[in-house]
């Protein structure tokens, strides 16, 4: 589970009904959140803040970020920067 101790915490969407979703914060902690602000599907990770999902976590972008980190660490020659 990707844990971010912060104002907004990622949680997995378990079920959806109108503007509400049941989300899993990991380790079985389920909570109802309002999904008016996002277009979330079951199985998506959403960022939850004060009872509202404020964004869908983009798994592809997350992997891109890791790829970018690895490129910076491995490819860029340190002496020439």
């Amino acid at each position, binding site marked *: *589970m*990707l844990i*971010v*101790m*912060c*104002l*907004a915490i*990622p949680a997995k969407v378990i079920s959806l009904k109108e503007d509400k979703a049941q989300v899993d914060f990991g380790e079985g902690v389920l909570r109802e959140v*309002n999904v*008016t*602000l*996002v277009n979330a599907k079951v199985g998506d*990770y959403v*960022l939850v*803040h*004060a*009872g*509202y999902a*404020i*964004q*869908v*976590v*983009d*798994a592809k*972008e*997350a*992997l*891109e*970020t*890791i790829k970018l*980190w690895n490129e*910076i*660490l491995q490819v860029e020659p*340190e*002496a020439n*920067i």
Partner: protein
Amino acid sequence: MIEKLRFRDPELAKRVAKKIHTVTPKEGTVKICHVCGTHEWTITHFGLRNLLPLNVEVIAGPGCPVCVTPASEIDEAVQLALKGVVVMCFGDVLRVSGSEMSLLDAKAKGADVRIVYGVSDAVKMAQKEPKKDFVFLAIGFETTAPSTAVEILNKPPNNFSFLVSHRVIPPAMKLLAEMEDLSLNGFIAPGHVSTIIGLEPYEVFPKVYGMPTVVAGFEPIDVLFGVYMILKQLRENKPRLENEYARVVSWEGNMKAQELMQKVFSVADGNWRGLGNIPSSKFMLNREYASYDAHLKHDVNVEHGIDIQHGCKCHLVIIGKIKPTECPLFMKACTPQKPVGACMVSIEGTCRIWAKAT
């Protein structure tokens, strides 16, 4: 897939730290400012400052919404609570001092003050007790304001109104950028505010102020990469806006949230505790939603309050001019158990975070 990512890998952190050293200038100090209490938590909790070169300083700006809420707005909530209105707030607002007392003090005097997790829970409470008047003290930056907007558009019950205290972050960053004696070299922009507002509002910082600006996430590696990206921009002398937190922040932000906020709020000048008046930095309810404005409904309006208690240095801590440990009250007269300044109250306050770490 997401579970397996390496946002907290200590070995990776060490490698990024090493990389940071390679792009740090040999002479002079680099001062980077973040404006989010959660960034401060990550930096302090994971000891990230110890990984940075001695001449790279990361300071905490006014990124704690509870800390910057002026005493006058707490005073209004206290007045309503003492008048018999049920006041609802987020947990870390309870102990923040107004001019004379906090909402917790009002509660001790018998007022009905309730903590809620979010505005939806507040509305539900009001629905269950239709004979009582309820007011929600809506504090928070752009991350929180959309939830207030949604609840207002959903037409809460007649016994419910709001003290809207939401603040807008970029104008406060502008104020810091213009403080010559602060001499900032770069900004780590707040990840979750950016989730809502996107990247565009930060363009002014590299363009007008020549300051590298990187939107970063909240894991240790996110913050370290943010610092690295800023230092690299400085080294190349090409200040620009970069996004390290692309997994939740897009260029345009959450447009649905922006649209709903625009429907409900207008932007006005606002007072920030410790910073004074900042142009275009506060959300106010639009006229058509005036029936939900607790100021009008309950005839309460406090213009000025006592923001900084005697001896408190929150106004300097909040812009990173001094460290919490440089305040004479820190962990002496002012502790998490008995806070004097707002920065010691909220879990996002710099003093509170440092108190926990010491």
